[in-house]
């Protein structure tokens, strides 16, 4: 049943366009500078202040990391920090989760347009929001705190801190309600609300916010981290204004965006005009759903302009995987930054000016309220990112130098393992296991993808040590290791992903609640380029009534699922269940796509891959056409024959007539 639109929700559907000042009543007085002032900046002042503003977003990030109690923030760098100008254009984002840095502008614009008159925007105020239709984050877990900077009675700019919160309500722990059909089963979004008023945190609003969470004290701590981070930025920017003058600092901010725009335009002009299109699939909108949905992306480059057209994308679905416009943009910007803008200041406000988006509201990656968006960030936003990644990398492939900044699609989605229950000390806990951060990166035009290298949208991610996880949560790992064949085969291999396999251990409740959610089981989500294969499919397995404990006490650590007795349950895309003491959970997250024809990869390199367990001997033979000696070196003669045969059979051709083959013709 299609979701019924909610009349009255339209006002929260923020668009991507810059603010139209003439048509926005109730704005506070804005500090502005002229183009002449921007052009008049000398190179010294510009560079000094630019460097200072970058340092400020670094300080914001440091502040959030130190204060946060959320493992996804402290251990995975899953947060964002940014500085915006007076009309909400983003001047600088810190090097954290780039999805979260992409739509801070929408949140600032909405706040300017809707809160200026009532309740007003004043010095010392900070606004909290987790409404992805408004902007800021991509799903309700992403909570943004937005703070205006005032100088001499005028609104000078904005700072924002956003981070993923472990739980904000909804029917499932972790707020990813895998059985839900719309947003009402999830955490209810909060549009911008003034949580700090004139420097004071309002207890009534804080209570109202925290009331919805299963871990309110933790979420309250993160709230303070974000408020503190904004305060650091405001203090430092105010000091900068006092030293250099507001007009100069603002001129630098505008110039940073102009500069990024100019540099990107120049780079686009150096690439050929053309159109590249791709597709990204997601299997399963919610628990029990078996359908497969598509996001279609047609990217056109004309002159110095890039257009992403998502026409033919599937309509939004009953489930948890839709995303809003902020999610769509969160799929575009991380790729543009890492592949098109690695050598310039990351000023999204300028970069967006080079980009047009064509997308119909009501589609899966531009969903209207009340579509379910609990997993937006790792589903439709991430799949948008995958499709964009393909088109951008393909375009870059046509330029000998710029091709080096491209990668095949990196790990195609987030593999959720959410655990909740009682820990070994008897305290309640809810946590997202972040091991899946160690995804494989996509192959490059001149090298393999980085094995367990991370995620494309978080340039500096981390995973916690096994010991930290075993200390914090009631679990015991049988293994955590890289997985052979998980990187997409190709002339250049995609980076491998990895797997974790564990049992519950020492929980007083014995069982541990488990939420599993990861698409990519029927259709792999990290495709390759130039003939390269996609990375492996997502693979999560529950073994019920396994004999792992018996094996351990008999002196053996099971080293594969095959070694376990019990009942194997291949997990569907979304599942909520309990992990009993006799159960084993295995989760194998994704690698990166390959590049080029696997038959072009040097046989010695494959043999090395096999010895290093990046590729199995089966994979070597069946996909790469490489035969190995007993001690796993390349058998060149057998390989030549095998490749000759495989070259035909994989193309659906009959084998060569024996006479021709024996004659040495190929």
């Amino acid at each position, binding site marked *: 049943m299609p979701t019924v639109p909610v009349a009255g929700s339209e006002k929260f559907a923020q668009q991507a366009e810059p603010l139209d000042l003439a048509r926005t009543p109730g704005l506070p007085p804005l500090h502005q500078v002229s183009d002449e002032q921007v052009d008049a900046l000398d190179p010294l002042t510009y560079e000094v202040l630019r460097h200072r503003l970058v340092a400020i977003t670094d300080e914001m990030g440091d502040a959030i990391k130190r204060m946060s109690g959320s493992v996804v923030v402290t251990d995975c760098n899953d947060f964002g920090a940014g500085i915006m100008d007076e009309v909400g254009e983003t001047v600088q984002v810190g090097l954290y989760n780039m999805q979260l840095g992409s739509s801070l502008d929408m949140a600032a614009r909405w706040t300017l347009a809707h809160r200026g008159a009532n309740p007003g925007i004043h010095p010392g105020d900070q606004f909290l929001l987790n409404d992805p239709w408004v902007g800021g984050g991509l799903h309700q877990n992403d909570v943004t705190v937005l703070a205006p900077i005032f100088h001499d009675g005028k609104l000078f700019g904005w700072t924002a801190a956003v981070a993923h919160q472990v739980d904000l309500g909804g029917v499932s722990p972790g707020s990813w309600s895998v059985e839900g059909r719309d947003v009402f089963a999830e955490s209810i979004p909060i549009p911008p609300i003034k949580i700090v008023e004139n420097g004071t945190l309002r207890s009534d609003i804080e209570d109202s916010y925290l009331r919805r969470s299963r871990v309110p004290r933790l979420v309250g701590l993160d709230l303070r981290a974000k408020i503190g981070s904004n305060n650091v930025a405001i203090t430092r920017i105010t000091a900068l204004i006092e030293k250099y003058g507001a007009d100069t600092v603002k001129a630098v901010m505008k110039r940073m965006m102009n500069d990024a725009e100019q540099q990107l335009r120049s780079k686009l002009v150096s690439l*050929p005009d053309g*159109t590249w299109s791709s597709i990204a699939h997601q*299997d399963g909108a919610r628990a029990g759903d078996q359908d497969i949905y598509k996001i279609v992306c047609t990217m056109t480059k004309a002159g110095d302009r890039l257009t992403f057209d998502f026409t033919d994308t599937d309509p939004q679905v009953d489930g948890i995987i839709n995303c809003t416009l902020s999610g769509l943009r969160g799929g575009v910007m991380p790729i543009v930054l890492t592949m098109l803008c690695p050598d310039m200041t990351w000023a999204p406000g300028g970069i967006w000016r080079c980009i047009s988006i064509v997308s119909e509201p009501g589609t899966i990656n531009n969903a209207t309220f009340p579509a379910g968006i609990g997993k937006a960030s790792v589903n439709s936003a991430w799949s948008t990112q995958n499709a964009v990644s393909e088109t951008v990398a393909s375009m870059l492939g046509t330029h000998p130098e710029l091709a080096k900044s491209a990668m095949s699609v990196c790990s195609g989605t987030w593999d959720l393992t959410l655990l909740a229950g009682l820990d070994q000390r008897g305290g309640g806990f809810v946590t997202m296991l972040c091991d899946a951060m160690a995804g494989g990166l996509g192959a490059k035009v001149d090298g393999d993808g980085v094995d367990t290298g991370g995620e494309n949208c978080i340039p500096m991610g981390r995973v916690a040590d096994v010991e930290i996880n075993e200390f914090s949560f009631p679990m015991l790992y049988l293994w955590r290791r890289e997985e*052979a*064949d998980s990187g997409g085969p190709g002339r250049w291999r995609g980076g491998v992903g990895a797997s974790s396999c564990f049992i519950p251990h020492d929980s007083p409740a014995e069982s541990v609640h488990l939420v599993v959610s990861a698409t990519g089981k029927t259709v792999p989500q990290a495709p390759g380029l130039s*003939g390269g294969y996609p990375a492996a499919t997502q693979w999560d397995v529950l073994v019920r009534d396994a004999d792992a404990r018996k094996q351990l006490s008999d002196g053996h650590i099971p080293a594969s699922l095959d070694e376990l007795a019990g009942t194997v349950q291949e997990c569907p895309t979304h599942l909520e269940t309990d992990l009993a003491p006799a159960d084993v959970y295995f989760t194998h997250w994704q690698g990166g796509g390959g590049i*080029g024809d696997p038959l072009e990869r040097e046989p010695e390199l494959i043999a090395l891959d096999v010895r290093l367990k990046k590729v199995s001997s089966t994979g070597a033979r*069946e996909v790469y056409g490489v035969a190995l000696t007993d001690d796993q070196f390349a058998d060149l003669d057998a390989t030549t024959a095998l490749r000759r045969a495989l070259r035909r059979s994989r193309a659906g051709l009959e084998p060569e007539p024996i006479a021709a083959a024996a004659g040495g013709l190929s």
Partner: protein
Amino acid sequence: MTARDIDLNLVVDADRQVHCRHCGEHLGDASTEPLAKARVHERPSVQAGPGIHVDPATLTDRPIVIRQTFCPQCLTLLATEIVPADEPSRRKWSLA
């Protein structure tokens, strides 16, 4: 149009004609259908190698295939995708 490499396998010449870099075979026109003459072959995705961990038939009713595009002459693999078979391929490109 400037002649240029398109990717590891394809090159386009000054007349917008696309050729295989490995054997020179003409494949199509870059501004319309670059791989018009390429050979396309589909197989069930379970044949795509050990990276397919679970038979998709256990999870979906839709047929999933590995669809590959080859140079008709030297049979170099030019494109690979694993997709539902019941939709047209969306992966294309063209140069202006």
